[in-house]
Each structure stands twice: as structure tokens, then as C-alpha cells.
């Protein structure tokens, strides 16, 4: 099961929102998708600059919001990172490196999903 999920994370297939057909959500989902590149860039800056506090804050926010926008995979993956970050470690970056790469890949696939669902 874990292997299967891990394999799925490594695909490049676009991910679309569970609320794809929810007209009321279309507008804010599009804003969410438009802002993904900005969030990826910010996460990478925090990570590279060793800014653990801001990094954790953004991961926590995406964990809380992802599912609400119909992307439960964002919530689930962010939770995995957050769990690892709970134990304060000096080498936190090494600890989460792999999970972070997976998370970025997921965000990129979610962003790519915009082309699939169409900009409504």
C-alpha cells in the first residue's frame, strides 16, 4: 500500500480537485492553482535558507487548506512532513528532504491539473 502510494506520488499525472464540478468553488480553486508556483518558490526559499519557522508555517497552512480545496493529497503529504518536523532536529532538512521533494512534485501536478480542468 505504501509502495503503491509512493509510486503514485512519483507519476507526473495532473491532479484535479475533488470539487471540480462544484460551481461555487471554481473561482477560489483557480486562484489557489494560480498561486501554486509562488508557494513552491517560497517553500524552496525557506528550505534553502534554513528558515524552519516560515517553512513549517506554510506547510501547516497547506495541510489545513489543501483538502478544503479538494486536494486531500496535499493535506496528507503535508501532514507527513509536519510529523517529521515535530521532533526538533538540527538536521531537519536532511530529515524531510525526500518528503519535501514529493510534496513539490505533488504541488506541480496539482498546478498542472489546471490545464485538465480548464480555467473556468
Amino acid at each position, binding site marked *: 500500500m505504501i509502495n503503491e502510494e509512493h509510486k503514485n506520488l512519483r507519476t507526473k499525472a495532473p491532479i484535479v480537485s475533488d470539487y471540480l464540478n462544484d460551481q*461555487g*468553488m471554481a*473561482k*477560489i480553486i483557480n*486562484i*489557489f492553482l494560480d498561486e501554486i508556483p509562488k508557494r513552491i518558490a517560497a517553500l524552496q526559499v525557506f528550505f534553502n535558507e534554513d528558515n524552519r519557522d516560515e517553512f513549517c*508555517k506554510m506547510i*501547516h*497552512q*497547506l*495541510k*489545513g*487548506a*489543501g*483538502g*478544503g*480545496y479538494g486536494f*486531500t493529497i496535499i*493535506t496528507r503529504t503535508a*501532514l507527513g512532513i509536519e510529523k517529521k518536523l515535530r521532533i526538533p532536529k538540527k538536521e531537519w532538512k536532511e530529515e524531510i528532504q525526500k518528503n519535501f521533494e514529493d510534496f513539490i512534485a505533488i504541488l506541480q501536478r496539482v498546478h498542472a491539473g489546471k490545464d485538465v480542468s480548464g480555467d473556468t
Partner: protein
Amino acid sequence: MAEENPIPRLLAIDDSELIHRLLETRLQGERLELHGATSSEDGLKKSKSLKPEVILLDIALDGMNGFELLEKLKEDPETRNIAVIFISATGEPMDRVKGLDMGAIDFIAKPFDSFELKARVRSALRTQHLVKLLEQRAQLDGLTGLWNRRYFDQRMIQEISEAKRHSRPLSLVLCDIDRFKRLNDQFGHPFGDLVLEKVAQILSGGRTSDIACRYGGEEFALILSSTNISMGHEVAERLRMAIESIVWPGNPDLVVTASFGICDTQNLFEDITPETMLKNADSALYKAKQSGRNRVESARSSAKSTPAEKNKSSNK
């Protein structure tokens, strides 16, 4: 006395714009006014100024976290009765326990289901509405429906504070039904109750801004905001005449009268307290009684007293 049913206000305090957008979309169509704050400081400020019915409060906030903010809200009498629902991505059961033990009424986990969110918000609003009704009921006089003495005491403190802050006048009127004991003895207590009810109707039927309270027994108090003593005197005089003009069922020749004492904040300077105002209004009322009843007397000598001149048979 029943208050209108305004659209309830909900304040969402969360540092994530993503959550604010989501709440705005998901709560669309609900009968509520949604406000937002993205920091705990702004949230605390808006809690005091808006006095929302419900607050949706995130735990992970910069500066003061959600628990610390809740503590502040509970310390302040102006915000302690706001229903707080924690809305958080924390998966820790102990966080939920801590929040509920601190006085939050509910907990919503992020990411939230929109139907559950709406149902929990509606439930909190219903509870708040009932709590307010109960609070209001506890402040009403059972017989007359006017505000009771407890409410009067609280409201006087508020009104004096507002009058001082905005340098505006405030008048207090005390009204006492003349020879009430005699009415009870002569016509019976049910009639006495009817007199109290009718007088209360008149006192509460004046200007909408006036606050009519049953002070105790056959004595009533009227708080007149932004009203100086001469304006207050006119108000009291109109009420006095209205009471005198009531036609009593089964006793058409009976005239029930009331005496009024009035004072205002002028000349009290820094000594404006509910006690000083009550003392002054009570002295004026005593003067009205001593001067023959059925009249309005002011605590300030410059205000004119108005003796009642009526041909109808009086109960004096």
C-alpha cells in the same frame, strides 16, 4: 422590550488567506455577516469592536496563539460570552481538550467538510441566540416587562461611562406612583398590578432611546441618554400627564397619578456615579411628594416644577 433579530456576525481569525477564501465561499448563503482577521492582534481588536456572536479561531497564529487569544477574550466582560469555535489543522486530541476546557464551544478540524462547517456554525448561532434570550429574560421584570433593577444598575454604569467619554448629558428620572398602597387596599392587588402594568406601558412608550426600568415596588427609573435636565423635564412631564389621563376599566372616575424626580450629570463634574445620580433624583422625587405629588421636580433649582391642575377627582 423584545429586541430585533439582526443578522449574526461571525469573525474568522486565521493567518491563512486560503482559509478566509474558503470560509467566504463555503458560508455563502448562510444568514450571517462574515468578518475576517489574519492576526491575533487584529482578531482581538475586531472581537471588541464587532462583538460577533461567533468566532472561528485558528490555534497556530503568530504572536498570541489561539489559546492565548481565547484567554484574553474570556478575561474581558465585553467579549467573554462570544461563542468560540476552534478551527485548526492540529491533529492533537489534547489541543481539542485544552480548547474546550478553556471555554471554546466546539472544534472543527481542517480541512473541514463544508456541510459540517455550516451545521456547526448554525448550531453555535442557535445556542448563542438562546443564551442571549435567557440573559435578557433574567434582566426583565416579570410583571411589567420593563428592565429590572439588576439591568438598571449595569446600564447606569455604562451610560455614565459613555456620557463622560463623549461629554454628553445624561438624565435620570425616578417615578413613583402616588398613594399606591391606598390603591391596593381600596381596589385589591390585581388592580394594583394592572396599575403597574399600565404605568410601565406609558413609561416604555416614550422616546425609543429612553431606557425604562422597574426600580422596585411602585417605583420606576428612566435613563435618558444625551438628554439635559430641561429636555428630561419635558419628557417626564409628558409621561406624568399621560399617566394622569389613563381611564381605568371599572373605575372611570379614578385618577392615578405619579410623582417624578429628575437630575442630570451637569454640575456633578467628576462625581458622576450611579449613586450620586440616584441620590439627586431621589431628593427631587421627595420634593415632588412633599410639594403635593403628581408633579415633576428637578434636582437643579433652575428647573421649573409643574404642579398638576386637574378637575377630575384625584387619588392624591
